[in-house]
């Protein structure tokens, strides 16, 4: 067992897969500059020492091209791992991801495959509205894409390796405050969980959630940073005698509904916590699905604790207010206990 940060775990996943399969390569902005950062959050740092500059490919600031090139390379025998510096820039390449990456296999009647990975850092870090968004829900709505959100080093490595081997396009959402990026790329107020990662190879299948904390009164579903906020809230609630189960689905598409339904059979109460804004966030889909398929296990309304429906403000005082906090999560839980 080695202890590592999520950034390191992602790097190791890429390293192992690039060693295993020469079709795998990385492309993105500033990912391989000598004396540079190894991408905005150091994930690709140093990889070119082993794999060379062609397989860790620096690109111009051309998001449409980055995504389109990944699609083209993937259809013709390569396995690209592309990235954007901030998730917010995915909007610049949305056409290539939504109209091409997600649809090519289908439009071709299954005759082409698009085995590509698109990595994107999300989360608010006091940089203002254009560098703060969580875009998961825009992509869960696109048939043809798989969506994963690793919140631990163990998951980061295991899920990314699975993503690289998937023959469908996979979008990986990584949280800026969880990377544990070091040195000049370190983030104020980062959580940077360091986790145990086995020496031996392992893969994590998509669609299998993880119970981060077992409980009997309330089920909380959360991803990425919100897993940790939910755990904080759970600790507080425990002192009040409220037992919380925290489920991290780990992948949003496919989604482990079985685990959630098993849990609410026990708790009969459900809260979904997401850093994304509330209206039409992925939490809405989870709530709607449960309301359609498992309504009768519930004794209380389904609560969603999400970022308020506003662009992310710059001032930390405001940013902290709009993003779900342990306190807001705990309040939602107390409300539900009234039922």
């Amino acid at each position, binding site marked *: 067992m080695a202890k590592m940060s999520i950034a390191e775990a992602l790097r190791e996943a890429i390293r192992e897969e690039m060693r295993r399969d020469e079709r795998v390569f990385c492309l993105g902005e500033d990912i391989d500059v000598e004396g540079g950062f190894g991408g905005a959050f150091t994930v690709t740092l140093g990889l070119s020492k082993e794999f060379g500059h062609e397989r860790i490919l620096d690109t111009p600031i051309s998001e449409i091209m980055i995504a*389109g090139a990944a699609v*083209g390379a993937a259809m*013709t025998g390569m396995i690209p791992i592309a990235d954007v510096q901030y998730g917010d820039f995915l909007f610049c390449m949305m056409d290539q991801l939504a*109209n091409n990456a997600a649809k090519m296999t289908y*439009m071709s*009647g299954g005759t082409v495959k698009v085995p590509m990975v698109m990595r994107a850092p999300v989360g608010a870090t006091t940089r203002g509205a254009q560098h703060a968004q969580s875009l998961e829900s825009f992509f869960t709505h696109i048939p043809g894409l798989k969506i994963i959100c690793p919140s631990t080093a163990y998951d980061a490595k295991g899920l990314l390796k699975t993503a690289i081997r998937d023959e469908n396009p996979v979008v990986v959402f990584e949280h800026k405050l969880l990377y544990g990026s070091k040195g000049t790329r370190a983030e104020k107020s980062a959580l940077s969980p360091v986790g145990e990662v086995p020496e031996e190879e392992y893969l994590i299948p998509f669609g299998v959630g993880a119970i981060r904390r077992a409980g009997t009164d309330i089920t909380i579903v959360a991803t990425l940073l919100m897993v940790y906020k939910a755990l904080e809230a759970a600790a507080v609630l425990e002192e009040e005698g409220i037992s919380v189960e925290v489920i991290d689905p780990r992948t949003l598409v496919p989604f482990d509904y079985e685990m959630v339904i098993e849990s609410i059979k026990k708790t009969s109460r459900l809260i979904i916590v997401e850093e994304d804004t509330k209206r039409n966030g992925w939490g809405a889909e989870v709530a709607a699905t449960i309301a359609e398929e498992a309504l009768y296990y519930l004794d209380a309304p389904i609560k969603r604790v999400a970022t308020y429906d506003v662009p992310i403000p710059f001032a930390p005082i405001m940013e902290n207010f709009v993003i779900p906090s342990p306190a807001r999560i705990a309040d939602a839980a107390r409300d539900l206990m009234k039922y």
Partner: protein
Amino acid sequence: MKEGNEKIIDMYKQMFLLRNYEDKIYFLFLEGVMPGTIHQSQGQEASAVGMLYDLRKEDYLTSTHRPAGHCLAKGVSLESMMAEMFAKSTGCCKGKGGAMHTGDITVGALPAIAITAGGMPVAVGVGLSCKMRKTDNVVVCFFGDGASNEGAFHEAMNAAAIWSLPVIFACENNLYGASTHINRVVKINDLAERGSAYGIPAEVVDGNDVLKVNEAATRAIDRARKGLGPTFLELKTYRRCGHSRNDACGYRDKAEEKEWFDKDPLTRLKKHMLDHNIITQEKIEAIEQEVMARIESAVDYAKASPDVKPEDALTNVY
């Protein structure tokens, strides 16, 4: 792949196939037996055949919303193209793609992309793949005059240039983007002038002269195979048809139409062949009859092919 006169005759045969395939589709479409819409390529046969004739099966093609000519010239089977138009399960996209997305990866024809210029960044990735896999394969990337105003064009051209990728950018300038004349949306005379913004060698080519197109293509393909990077060819041509289904081209000047119809690529090539005794009138007619028969049997094949099943809609997607 043929040489000399045989090649010229073979190119004529292909061009005649493209023209009459499209005319047949148009006829069938008006009959109402075909769903969706059509964007046809009558008049642009010389650019499709001239650009693609010398490619290997392992080379690639990226195409547009107007893909029929490109696909047939790259070797997608006539039957599977026709069947796709009829939305049959034997179509090159199993009835899932349709007229704007035809292709067949087994002959290097990627499924066509109908987002204007959307195929250009994809072609960069194909070029990257050819290079990284250490092949000397190339990709011909077709797009239109209108597409040259899309951001995707810019990002793709620049990337292909800096990585000297084996991409041949083939701009079919048929003077119109849908109903909009190119002179209303760019301030330059030739789109080829845009090559210099990326350090990409560019040429203006008579897109209705298949021999000229093929010469330029040969140079560009050769450069690409040698690893010398992309070339930008502006092929001046013209649509004989509407932009899409029932478009009477009310936005086009009749004199302009006449001028260009007089430069019809098939008529010119046929005249060239006869003037230079490359082939006799009789032989031409024999070839044309053979092609027409192939088209008819492709229609029969398509019509006789089984319909898709509703539930098929749920396959081929995660």
